[in-house]
């Protein structure tokens, strides 16, 4: 039978192996389903799916090598990933140069898709999420002064922290972010920064960190006497958060792509399938990867049939991707404009007393 | 002008006085012996002269120029070479290389020329190699040119160390216990070697040795240290008879080293 090869450029080792694992798991489910149903029907032909997972070790140079290998050695039709911007930016260049469509499910840095017709993403951008969070804390918590704690060496939190600061200071005036504190990747102790933050008199703490750092930050903050709200970002959105954080995180809010608790329809179906197979509620990376793959397949189907010539097919897919309108993803509705970035809504989720991520509010551009 | 002049040289290690008030004038061509009980401070004197320690007090002049406090490679370049009490050859470099590298200060080229291999580089490299080959020949080490020093018999290692010091073209050669670990046969060879070097290279030699056979047969003059201080000074025969030297150093018995 004919096959469609899709490459996955994901971090299975290195700093964020969980991200790679989630992506792989989501992809496996989707592949299993489609192949079990006979394959992907494109035009009048059905194709079996072959997914090639390659580890980029969470390193930029490895991500480019991986991308090139997938493109030239394995001859994939398109690439999903890399997930974080540090890898997605250079890998995007490679894919663009080699005229191969790439969809990063999770990279929120504007540079990833800038001037790269072949590069797409399935998530919203930092410049969108930052203001959402700033507006939310202003409205919800009546915050006038905010503190921020973020990882300076990781570009996702750093970017988001800066966009948040800009947006917050636009609303409340310069200097309203009273503490803008940093640490470095893999730090475990934030007591010095938090001592400053506690003493700064801020009304809210914004910390756009990954789910595995959040418990440490939250617990240490509480121990040092922080009693006010803490606001997070989409990187909080992992099922593991509650496992690691326990009661400490309950009641806090974060902006994200989708809310698992109380989800309906396709989203709920996905969550249940994933949960049954792997034993935990999928995080946003999994959901976004799922969407990214489906986006790709939508474009593939829209080509109306594959020619078998890789270069032509890749080009066609790229063209179709830019035309995707009102794609119903499990993380929300997406429409692509030229530039490779989707227009989609963000949601704010509140962590309930049961530890579930409950839909609280949605914010659309 | 005398070759080496040491005035009121004193050195402390913390509270330990290793050398005290040493005075000495060494004329060109002389062969001076330095003896004394273990821990008397002999090696320390050498270390001071070659610049390895900076003296606590005192002056060291080479041909009228004060050298105390200069870095060792500078002192060596001025013409003082030495051997070590415990052999310190470069063991992962060949015997031949050992004799070349010691001429470092003579090279007169640097990184750039060494890469570009300019004519001046070739000339100086050739000169260095010539010196090394000559020394190999003279010391009878030809067969060992490509050997690593640690694989050489002990006596030959000592010989190589002397050769390495000679490759520097020194005015003054310091030998620290060259006969240690040698058997009587080798000691005889060493005595011949020292005498031969002295005439062949027209060197001034300063020698530390516990082997009385060597000291008494080659030295013109002997200085005896004890607890860092000079306790005797004179010709071999004078020193041999000196009561204090016998008490502190030689012992009453018939000398076991013939």
């Amino acid at each position, binding site marked *: 039978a004919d096959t469609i090869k899709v490459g996955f450029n994901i971090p299975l080792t290195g700093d964020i192996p969980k991200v790679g694992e989630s992506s792989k798991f989501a992809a496996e489910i989707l592949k299993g389903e489609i192949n079990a149903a006979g394959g992907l029907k494109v035009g009048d032909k059905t194709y079996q799916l072959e997914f090639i997972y390659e580890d980029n070790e969470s390193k930029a140079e490895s991500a480019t090598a991986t991308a090139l290998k997938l493109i030239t050695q394995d001859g994939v039709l398109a690439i999903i990933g890399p997930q974080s911007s540090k890898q997605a930016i250079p890998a995007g260049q490679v894919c663009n140069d080699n005229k191969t469509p790439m969809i990063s499910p999770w990279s929120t840095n504007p540079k990833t898709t800038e001037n790269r017709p072949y590069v797409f993403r399935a998530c919203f951008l930092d410049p969108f999420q930052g203001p959402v969070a700033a507006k939310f804390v202003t409205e919800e918590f009546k915050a006038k002064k905010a503190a921020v704690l973020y990882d300076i060496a990781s570009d996702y939190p750093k970017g988001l922290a800066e966009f948040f600061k800009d947006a917050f200071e636009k609303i409340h005036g310069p200097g309203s972010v009273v503490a803008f504190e940093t640490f470095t990747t893999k730090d475990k102790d934030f007591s010095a920064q938090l001592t400053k933050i506690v003493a700064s008199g801020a009304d809210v703490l914004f910390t756009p960190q990954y789910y595995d750092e959040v418990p440490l930050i939250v617990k240490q903050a509480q121990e040092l006497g922080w009693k006010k709200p803490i606001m997070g970002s989409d990187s909080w959105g992992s099922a593991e958060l509650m496992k690691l954080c326990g009661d400490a995180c309950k009641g806090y809010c974060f902006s994200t792509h989708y809310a698992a608790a109380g989800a309906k329809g396709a989203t709920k179906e996905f969550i249940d399938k994933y949960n049954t197979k792997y034993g935990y509620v999928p995080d946003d990376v999994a959901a976004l990867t799922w969407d990214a793959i489906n986006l790709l397949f939508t474009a593939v189907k829209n080509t109306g049939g594959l020619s078998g010539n890789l270069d032509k097919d890749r080009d066609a897919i790229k063209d179709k991707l830019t035309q995707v309108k009102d794609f119903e993803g499990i993380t929300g509705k997406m429409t692509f404009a030229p530039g490779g970035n989707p227009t989609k809504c963000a949601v704010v989720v509140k962590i309930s007393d049961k530890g579930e991520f409950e839909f609280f509010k949605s914010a659309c551009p | 002008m005398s070759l080496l002049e040491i005035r009121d040289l004193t050195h402390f290690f913390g509270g330990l006085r290793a050398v005290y008030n040493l005075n000495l004038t060494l004329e060109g061509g002389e062969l001076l012996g330095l003896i004394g009980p*273990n821990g008397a401070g002999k090696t320390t004197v050498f270390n001071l002269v070659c610049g390895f320690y900076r003296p606590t007090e005192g002056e060291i002049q080479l041909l009228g120029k004060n050298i105390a406090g200069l870095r060792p490679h500078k002192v060596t370049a001025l013409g003082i070479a030495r051997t070590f009490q*415990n052999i310190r050859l470069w063991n992962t470099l060949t015997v031949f290389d050992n004799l070349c590298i010691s001429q470092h200060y003579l090279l007169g080229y640097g990184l750039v020329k060494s890469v570009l291999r300019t004519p001046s580089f070739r000339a100086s490299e050739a000169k260095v190699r010539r010196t090394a080959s000559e020394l190999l020949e003279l010391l009878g080490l030809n067969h060992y040119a490509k050997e690593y020093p640690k694989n050489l*018999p002990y006596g*030959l290692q000592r010989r190589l160390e002397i050769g390495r010091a000679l490759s520097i073209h020194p005015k003054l050669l310091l030998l620290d*216990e060259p006969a*240690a*670990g040698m058997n*009587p*046969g080798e000691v005889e060879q060493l005595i011949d070697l020292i005498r031969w070097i002295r005439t062949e290279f027209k060197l001034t030699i300063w020698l530390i040795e516990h082997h009385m056979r060597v000291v008494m047969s080659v030295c013109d003059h002997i200085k005896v240290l004890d607890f860092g201080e000079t306790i005797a000074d004179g010709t071999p025969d004078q020193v041999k008879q000196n009561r204090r030297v016998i008490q502190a150093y030689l012992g009453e018995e018939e000398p076991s*080293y013939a």
Partner: protein
Amino acid sequence: MEKKNRPMLEVRNLHVRYGSITALRGISFHVNDGEVVALLGANGAGKSTTLMSIMRLPPPEGPTVSEGGITYNGIDLLPVPAHVLVAKFGIGLVPEGRHIFGNLSVLENLKLASYARTDKENLDADYERVFSLFPRLKDRRNQRGDTLSGGEQQMLAMGRAFMSGVRFILLDEPSMGLAPLLMQELFRVLKQLNEAGMTILVVEQNARIALKYAHRAYVLEAGNIVMEGSAEALRNDPKIQRAYLG
């Protein structure tokens, strides 16, 4: 001096290699209880190798025995590791090059030597003996080993051997770097020890003094024993006189 005739250490047909280099080519000799035996030979003849093989120092520091046997009072020594030889058999080695623990003080060096001793009651007397033998060490007892002068280190190495309470001691060039007076002292001490029951196998370049104090001697050349006999006989042998007595 009365000589005891029970062979204590027996070396039979010993072949020893360093990697592919053969250092000993089948040597046999013995040391009787209570004897002082000297091992003479030129540089590189294999004297140190002989002592190291007896001590079973493992590679890379030590050589490998490829053939032959070593017994001590009839017990095969080949399978016994060095530390057991010291602790259980009472065989000690003062190695060539002293091997002082430079980062320990003189006193600590001595203390460490008594690590495996069981007769703690004689310890104080032994310290006294070492210090009276080498008063210099007493002055320097809190100084780090690596700052001692060459001769002082040699004294310390000997001192350690005494402190480890061994009955059979192997000495590798103990006189190296010692001032004449001290060397005479040292051999006098060795004689005393021997009279008190210590068996000694000594490697020495200074054949004159070695033959003066030893009972018997062996001469090694290029990994073979080429001559053996009583010290007196060797002292008078013209060949020895020429090669080793200068």
